[in-house]
Protein backbone atom coordinates (compact mmCIF):
# COMPACT_ATOMS: atom_id res chain seq x y z
CA UNK A 1 0.00 0.00 0.00
CA UNK A 2 2.70 2.40 1.01
CA UNK A 3 4.59 2.26 -2.31
CA UNK A 4 1.35 3.03 -4.14
CA UNK A 5 0.75 6.14 -2.03
CA UNK A 6 4.31 7.28 -2.61
CA UNK A 7 3.83 6.64 -6.31
CA UNK A 8 0.71 8.77 -6.40
CA UNK A 9 2.44 11.57 -4.54
CA UNK A 10 5.42 11.39 -6.89
CA UNK A 11 3.15 11.42 -9.93
CA UNK A 12 1.28 14.42 -8.59
CA UNK A 13 4.54 16.21 -7.84
CA UNK A 14 5.87 15.51 -11.33
CA UNK A 15 2.61 16.67 -12.88
CA UNK A 16 2.77 19.90 -10.87
CA UNK A 17 6.38 20.46 -11.89
CA UNK A 18 5.49 20.16 -15.55
CA UNK A 19 2.56 22.57 -15.34
CA UNK A 20 3.34 26.20 -15.89
CA UNK A 21 2.23 28.38 -12.98
CA UNK A 22 -0.67 30.74 -13.73
CA UNK A 23 -0.07 34.39 -14.49
CA UNK A 24 0.43 36.03 -11.08
CA UNK A 25 -1.93 38.85 -10.15
CA UNK A 26 -1.74 41.83 -7.84
CA UNK A 27 -4.27 42.55 -5.09
CA UNK A 28 -6.43 44.53 -7.52
CA UNK A 29 -6.68 41.55 -9.84
CA UNK A 30 -4.43 42.91 -12.59
CA UNK A 31 -1.69 40.72 -14.06
CA UNK A 32 1.55 41.25 -12.16
CA UNK A 33 4.32 41.97 -14.64
CA UNK A 34 6.99 42.07 -11.94
CA UNK A 35 10.12 40.15 -12.79
CA UNK A 36 13.24 40.21 -14.91
CA UNK A 37 12.49 39.99 -18.61
CA UNK A 38 14.35 39.83 -21.91
CA UNK A 39 12.91 41.36 -25.03
CA UNK A 40 13.98 40.75 -28.61
CA UNK A 41 16.02 37.70 -29.44
CA UNK A 42 16.98 35.59 -26.46
CA UNK A 43 19.51 33.75 -28.59
CA UNK A 44 21.46 36.86 -29.25
CA UNK A 45 21.48 37.87 -25.61
CA UNK A 46 22.76 34.70 -24.07
CA UNK A 47 24.10 32.59 -26.92
CA UNK A 48 22.49 29.97 -29.08
CA UNK A 49 23.33 27.02 -26.85
CA UNK A 50 22.04 28.71 -23.70
CA UNK A 51 18.92 29.91 -25.47
CA UNK A 52 18.14 26.36 -26.51
CA UNK A 53 18.45 25.23 -22.92
CA UNK A 54 16.08 27.84 -21.56
CA UNK A 55 13.55 27.69 -24.37
CA UNK A 56 10.10 27.47 -22.83
CA UNK A 57 8.69 24.00 -22.21
CA UNK A 58 6.43 22.83 -24.95
CA UNK A 59 8.47 23.87 -27.92
CA UNK A 60 10.07 26.72 -29.72
CA UNK A 61 9.38 30.36 -28.93
CA UNK A 62 6.34 31.80 -30.62
CA UNK A 63 6.92 32.72 -34.23
CA UNK A 64 7.34 36.46 -34.59
CA UNK A 65 4.66 38.31 -36.46
CA UNK A 66 5.52 39.14 -40.04
CA UNK A 67 7.38 42.42 -39.79
CA UNK A 68 5.60 45.40 -41.24
CA UNK A 69 7.79 47.76 -43.19
CA UNK A 70 8.00 51.22 -41.70
CA UNK A 71 5.57 53.50 -43.61
CA UNK A 72 7.99 56.32 -44.22
CA UNK A 73 6.98 59.25 -46.40
CA UNK A 74 8.94 59.38 -49.64
CA UNK A 75 11.46 61.97 -48.52
CA UNK A 76 11.94 60.17 -45.23
CA UNK A 77 12.46 56.80 -46.92
CA UNK A 78 15.31 58.37 -48.90
CA UNK A 79 16.86 59.58 -45.69
CA UNK A 80 16.59 56.10 -44.17
CA UNK A 81 18.36 54.71 -47.23
CA UNK A 82 21.13 57.26 -46.79
CA UNK A 83 21.62 56.04 -43.23
CA UNK A 84 21.74 52.46 -44.50
CA UNK A 85 24.23 53.34 -47.21
CA UNK A 86 26.41 54.76 -44.48
CA UNK A 87 26.16 51.37 -42.74
CA UNK A 88 24.74 52.72 -39.54
CA UNK A 89 27.75 54.83 -38.67
CA UNK A 90 25.33 57.57 -37.57
CA UNK A 91 23.63 55.32 -35.01
CA UNK A 92 22.94 57.39 -31.88
CA UNK A 93 23.30 54.25 -29.78
CA UNK A 94 26.94 53.95 -30.87
CA UNK A 95 27.47 57.29 -29.10
CA UNK A 96 26.21 55.66 -25.90
CA UNK A 97 23.04 57.73 -25.89
CA UNK A 98 19.85 56.29 -24.44
CA UNK A 99 18.12 54.40 -27.20
CA UNK A 100 14.52 55.50 -26.70
CA UNK A 101 11.34 53.53 -27.20
CA UNK A 102 10.66 50.95 -28.47
CA UNK A 103 14.32 50.21 -29.25
CA UNK A 104 15.15 49.73 -25.58
CA UNK A 105 12.84 46.71 -25.56
CA UNK A 106 14.84 45.05 -28.33
CA UNK A 107 18.21 45.43 -26.61
CA UNK A 108 20.02 42.16 -25.90
CA UNK A 109 20.08 42.97 -22.20
CA UNK A 110 17.32 42.30 -19.68
CA UNK A 111 15.11 44.70 -17.78
CA UNK A 112 13.19 44.47 -14.54
CA UNK A 113 9.55 45.38 -14.15
CA UNK A 114 8.37 46.21 -10.64
CA UNK A 115 4.66 46.74 -10.25
CA UNK A 116 3.38 48.63 -7.23
CA UNK A 117 0.00 50.28 -6.59
CA UNK A 118 -0.33 53.27 -8.91
CA UNK A 119 3.00 52.77 -10.66
CA UNK A 120 4.90 50.37 -12.86
CA UNK A 121 8.68 50.74 -12.84
CA UNK A 122 10.84 49.63 -15.75
CA UNK A 123 14.54 49.31 -14.92
CA UNK A 124 16.68 48.57 -17.95
CA UNK A 125 20.19 47.19 -17.87
CA UNK A 126 21.00 48.94 -21.13
CA UNK A 127 22.14 52.53 -20.86
CA UNK A 128 20.95 52.93 -17.24
CA UNK A 129 17.50 53.65 -18.58
CA UNK A 130 14.40 53.67 -16.41
CA UNK A 131 10.77 54.56 -16.63
CA UNK A 132 8.49 55.42 -13.73
CA UNK A 133 5.07 54.89 -15.22
CA UNK A 134 1.97 56.13 -13.40
CA UNK A 135 -1.07 53.88 -13.63
CA UNK A 136 -3.29 55.95 -11.34
CA UNK A 137 -5.16 57.69 -14.12
CA UNK A 138 -3.05 60.80 -14.40
CA UNK A 139 -2.41 62.36 -17.78
CA UNK A 140 0.85 63.51 -19.36
CA UNK A 141 2.07 66.70 -17.68
CA UNK A 142 1.66 69.90 -19.67
CA UNK A 143 5.27 70.98 -19.21
CA UNK A 144 7.04 68.08 -20.92
CA UNK A 145 10.59 68.74 -22.05
CA UNK A 146 11.53 66.54 -24.98
CA UNK A 147 13.73 63.64 -23.97
CA UNK A 148 15.29 60.40 -25.18
CA UNK A 149 12.81 58.16 -23.35
CA UNK A 150 9.80 60.46 -23.57
CA UNK A 151 7.04 60.85 -21.02
CA UNK A 152 5.01 57.79 -20.19
CA UNK A 153 1.61 57.17 -18.64
CA UNK A 154 -0.29 53.90 -18.63
CA UNK A 155 -3.63 52.29 -17.93
CA UNK A 156 -5.08 48.81 -18.00
CA UNK A 157 -7.38 47.55 -20.72
CA UNK A 158 -8.49 44.18 -19.41
CA UNK A 159 -5.30 42.21 -18.84
CA UNK A 160 -3.19 44.45 -21.09
CA UNK A 161 -1.05 47.30 -19.79
CA UNK A 162 -1.42 50.08 -22.35
CA UNK A 163 1.50 52.47 -22.24
CA UNK A 164 1.35 55.87 -23.90
CA UNK A 165 4.58 57.71 -24.66
CA UNK A 166 5.04 61.22 -26.04
CA UNK A 167 7.54 64.03 -25.48
CA UNK A 168 10.42 62.49 -27.37
CA UNK A 169 13.35 64.34 -28.85
CA UNK A 170 14.38 63.42 -32.39
CA UNK A 171 17.75 61.93 -31.43
CA UNK A 172 16.94 58.22 -31.28
CA UNK A 173 16.21 55.50 -33.80
CA UNK A 174 13.14 53.29 -33.45
CA UNK A 175 14.75 49.96 -34.26
CA UNK A 176 16.82 49.15 -37.31
CA UNK A 177 19.49 51.25 -39.01
CA UNK A 178 18.26 54.68 -39.92
CA UNK A 179 14.76 54.31 -38.46
CA UNK A 180 14.65 57.94 -37.45
CA UNK A 181 11.66 59.90 -36.22
CA UNK A 182 10.68 63.45 -35.31
CA UNK A 183 9.81 64.95 -31.95
CA UNK A 184 6.14 64.40 -32.85
CA UNK A 185 6.58 60.67 -32.25
CA UNK A 186 3.79 59.00 -30.32
CA UNK A 187 4.36 55.43 -29.17
CA UNK A 188 1.67 53.14 -27.80
CA UNK A 189 2.92 49.92 -26.20
CA UNK A 190 0.73 47.03 -25.14
CA UNK A 191 2.13 44.53 -22.67
CA UNK A 192 0.07 41.37 -22.31
CA UNK A 193 1.37 38.61 -20.05
CA UNK A 194 -0.11 35.74 -22.02
CA UNK A 195 1.32 33.07 -19.74
CA UNK A 196 3.69 32.76 -16.81
CA UNK A 197 6.89 33.35 -18.75
CA UNK A 198 5.72 35.32 -21.79
CA UNK A 199 4.67 38.88 -22.50
CA UNK A 200 3.38 39.73 -25.94
CA UNK A 201 4.62 43.17 -26.85
CA UNK A 202 2.62 45.14 -29.39
CA UNK A 203 3.89 48.55 -30.28
CA UNK A 204 2.40 51.23 -32.51
CA UNK A 205 4.54 54.14 -33.63
CA UNK A 206 2.87 57.23 -35.04
CA UNK A 207 4.72 60.24 -36.40
CA UNK A 208 2.92 62.60 -38.80
CA UNK A 209 6.22 64.25 -39.72
CA UNK A 210 7.84 61.14 -41.20
CA UNK A 211 5.22 58.36 -41.55
CA UNK A 212 2.21 58.02 -43.82
CA UNK A 213 0.39 56.06 -41.11
CA UNK A 214 0.99 54.06 -37.95
CA UNK A 215 3.88 51.53 -37.84
CA UNK A 216 2.97 48.42 -35.89
CA UNK A 217 5.37 45.77 -34.64
CA UNK A 218 5.06 42.77 -32.34
CA UNK A 219 7.69 40.89 -30.41
CA UNK A 220 7.86 38.46 -27.53
CA UNK A 221 9.32 39.23 -24.14
CA UNK A 222 10.50 36.27 -22.07
CA UNK A 223 10.76 35.88 -18.31
CA UNK A 224 14.38 35.34 -17.27
CA UNK A 225 14.26 33.17 -14.15
CA UNK A 226 17.34 33.45 -11.97
CA UNK A 227 18.58 36.46 -13.92
CA UNK A 228 19.24 39.90 -12.53
CA UNK A 229 19.80 43.31 -14.05
CA UNK A 230 23.49 44.06 -14.17
CA UNK A 231 25.50 47.13 -15.15
CA UNK A 232 26.23 48.40 -18.64
CA UNK A 233 28.27 51.59 -18.56
CA UNK A 234 28.52 52.26 -22.26
CA UNK A 235 30.80 55.26 -21.94
CA UNK A 236 33.63 53.47 -20.17
CA UNK A 237 35.83 52.76 -23.17
CA UNK A 238 33.89 53.54 -26.31
CA UNK A 239 36.61 52.97 -28.90
CA UNK A 240 34.04 52.61 -31.64
CA UNK A 241 33.33 56.30 -31.67
CA UNK A 242 37.03 57.03 -32.17
CA UNK A 243 37.19 54.55 -35.04
CA UNK A 244 33.99 55.99 -36.51
CA UNK A 245 35.58 59.43 -36.62
CA UNK A 246 38.58 57.97 -38.40
CA UNK A 247 36.34 56.21 -40.93
CA UNK A 248 34.37 59.40 -41.56
CA UNK A 249 37.59 61.28 -42.29
CA UNK A 250 39.32 58.72 -44.46
CA UNK A 251 36.67 56.67 -46.26
CA UNK A 252 35.53 58.31 -49.49
CA UNK A 253 32.03 56.85 -49.16
CA UNK A 254 31.41 58.85 -46.01
CA UNK A 255 32.55 62.18 -47.35
CA UNK A 256 29.67 64.49 -48.01
Amino acid at each position, binding site marked *: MKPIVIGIILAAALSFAQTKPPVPRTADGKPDLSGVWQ*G*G*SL*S*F*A*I*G*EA*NAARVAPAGGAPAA*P*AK*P*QAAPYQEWAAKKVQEF*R*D*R*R*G*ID*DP*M*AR*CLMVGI*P*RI*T*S*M*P*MPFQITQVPGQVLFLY*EAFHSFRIIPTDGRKHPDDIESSFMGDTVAHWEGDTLVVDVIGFNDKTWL*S*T*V*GSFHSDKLHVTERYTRVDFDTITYD*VTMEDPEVFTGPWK*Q*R*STIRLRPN*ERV*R*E*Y*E*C*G*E*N*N*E*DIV*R*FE*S*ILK*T*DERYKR
Partner: protein
Amino acid sequence: MKSIVLASVLLLAGLPVVAHHSFAAEYDGEKPITVKGVITKVDWANPHMHFYLDATNDKGEVEHWKFEGYPPNMLVRQGWKKDMTLKAGDHISVFAWLARDGSKLAHSREVTWSDGKKMQSGPPAGTGGAN
Protein backbone atom coordinates in the same frame (compact mmCIF):
# COMPACT_ATOMS: atom_id res chain seq x y z
CA MET B 1 26.00 27.67 -40.53
CA LYS B 2 24.69 28.43 -37.08
CA SER B 3 25.42 32.10 -37.64
CA ILE B 4 23.51 32.06 -40.88
CA VAL B 5 20.51 30.45 -39.24
CA LEU B 6 20.59 32.91 -36.37
CA ALA B 7 20.95 35.84 -38.73
CA SER B 8 17.86 34.66 -40.59
CA VAL B 9 15.92 34.48 -37.35
CA LEU B 10 16.96 38.00 -36.49
CA LEU B 11 15.86 39.29 -39.87
CA LEU B 12 12.47 37.72 -39.34
CA ALA B 13 12.00 39.20 -35.92
CA GLY B 14 9.83 42.27 -35.74
CA LEU B 15 12.42 44.28 -33.90
CA PRO B 16 15.88 42.98 -34.70
CA VAL B 17 18.23 43.25 -31.78
CA VAL B 18 21.43 45.11 -32.31
CA ALA B 19 24.57 45.38 -30.31
CA HIS B 20 26.08 48.63 -29.17
CA HIS B 21 27.15 49.77 -32.61
CA SER B 22 26.53 48.98 -36.20
CA PHE B 23 28.71 46.01 -37.05
CA ALA B 24 28.72 46.94 -40.70
CA ALA B 25 30.19 50.39 -40.17
CA GLU B 26 33.47 48.95 -38.95
CA TYR B 27 33.59 45.31 -40.01
CA ASP B 28 33.04 43.27 -43.16
CA GLY B 29 30.77 40.26 -42.67
CA GLU B 30 32.11 38.91 -45.98
CA LYS B 31 35.62 38.67 -44.63
CA PRO B 32 35.78 35.96 -41.96
CA ILE B 33 39.18 35.05 -40.59
CA THR B 34 40.66 32.62 -38.09
CA VAL B 35 43.80 33.74 -36.28
CA LYS B 36 45.96 31.64 -33.97
CA GLY B 37 48.28 33.13 -31.43
CA VAL B 38 49.05 34.09 -27.86
CA ILE B 39 46.99 36.55 -25.81
CA THR B 40 49.01 39.57 -24.70
CA LYS B 41 46.31 41.65 -23.03
CA VAL B 42 42.59 41.64 -22.24
CA ASP B 43 40.57 44.83 -21.80
CA TRP B 44 37.49 43.75 -19.85
CA ALA B 45 35.55 46.96 -20.40
CA ASN B 46 32.33 48.43 -21.74
CA PRO B 47 30.84 48.84 -24.19
CA HIS B 48 32.92 46.02 -25.67
CA MET B 49 35.70 43.76 -24.52
CA HIS B 50 38.91 43.94 -26.52
CA PHE B 51 41.68 41.43 -26.48
CA TYR B 52 45.13 41.55 -28.05
CA LEU B 53 46.91 38.66 -29.63
CA ASP B 54 50.35 38.08 -31.15
CA ALA B 55 50.32 35.79 -34.16
CA THR B 56 53.24 34.66 -36.31
CA ASN B 57 52.56 34.94 -40.03
CA ASP B 58 53.89 32.79 -42.87
CA LYS B 59 57.03 34.93 -43.11
CA GLY B 60 57.84 34.37 -39.48
CA GLU B 61 56.89 37.91 -38.54
CA VAL B 62 54.87 38.61 -35.42
CA GLU B 63 51.59 40.40 -36.10
CA HIS B 64 49.81 42.30 -33.37
CA TRP B 65 46.07 41.71 -33.57
CA LYS B 66 43.21 43.33 -31.74
CA PHE B 67 39.75 41.81 -31.40
CA GLU B 68 36.46 43.25 -30.24
CA GLY B 69 33.82 41.22 -28.40
CA TYR B 70 30.74 41.29 -26.19
CA PRO B 71 30.43 43.68 -23.24
CA PRO B 72 31.24 42.21 -19.82
CA ASN B 73 27.59 41.76 -18.80
CA MET B 74 26.92 39.53 -21.79
CA LEU B 75 30.21 37.65 -21.41
CA VAL B 76 29.36 36.86 -17.79
CA ARG B 77 25.98 35.47 -18.83
CA GLN B 78 27.77 33.07 -21.13
CA GLY B 79 30.03 31.81 -18.40
CA TRP B 80 33.04 34.06 -18.84
CA LYS B 81 34.95 35.22 -15.75
CA LYS B 82 37.09 38.35 -15.64
CA ASP B 83 40.85 37.62 -15.46
CA MET B 84 40.18 33.86 -15.50
CA THR B 85 38.54 32.77 -18.72
CA LEU B 86 40.87 34.63 -21.08
CA LYS B 87 44.23 35.89 -19.92
CA ALA B 88 47.67 36.88 -21.15
CA GLY B 89 49.67 33.86 -22.21
CA ASP B 90 46.68 31.80 -23.35
CA HIS B 91 47.17 30.05 -26.67
CA ILE B 92 43.98 30.46 -28.64
CA SER B 93 42.49 30.56 -32.05
CA VAL B 94 39.78 33.13 -32.73
CA PHE B 95 37.13 33.26 -35.42
CA ALA B 96 36.32 36.82 -36.42
CA TRP B 97 35.42 39.24 -39.19
CA LEU B 98 38.00 41.74 -40.44
CA ALA B 99 37.76 45.49 -40.06
CA ARG B 100 37.04 47.36 -43.26
CA ASP B 101 40.05 49.64 -42.80
CA GLY B 102 42.52 46.82 -43.46
CA SER B 103 44.15 47.03 -40.04
CA LYS B 104 44.83 44.08 -37.74
CA LEU B 105 41.47 44.63 -36.09
CA ALA B 106 38.61 42.17 -36.22
CA HIS B 107 35.26 41.47 -34.59
CA SER B 108 35.46 38.19 -32.72
CA ARG B 109 32.75 35.56 -32.63
CA GLU B 110 34.31 32.51 -30.99
CA VAL B 111 37.48 31.71 -29.10
CA THR B 112 38.97 28.21 -29.03
CA TRP B 113 41.62 27.44 -26.42
CA SER B 114 44.49 25.03 -26.96
CA ASP B 115 42.71 22.39 -24.89
CA GLY B 116 39.77 22.48 -27.27
CA LYS B 117 37.42 24.55 -25.09
CA LYS B 118 35.26 26.93 -27.14
CA MET B 119 33.30 29.99 -26.03
CA GLN B 120 31.37 32.66 -27.85
CA SER B 121 33.09 36.01 -27.55
CA GLY B 122 30.93 38.22 -29.73
CA PRO B 123 27.71 38.47 -31.72
CA PRO B 124 27.20 37.08 -35.20
CA ALA B 125 28.10 39.23 -38.16
CA GLY B 126 25.52 41.56 -39.51
CA THR B 127 23.48 41.97 -36.36
CA GLY B 128 24.28 45.64 -36.30
CA GLY B 129 22.05 46.48 -39.22
CA ALA B 130 22.57 46.95 -42.92
CA ASN B 131 25.43 45.02 -44.45
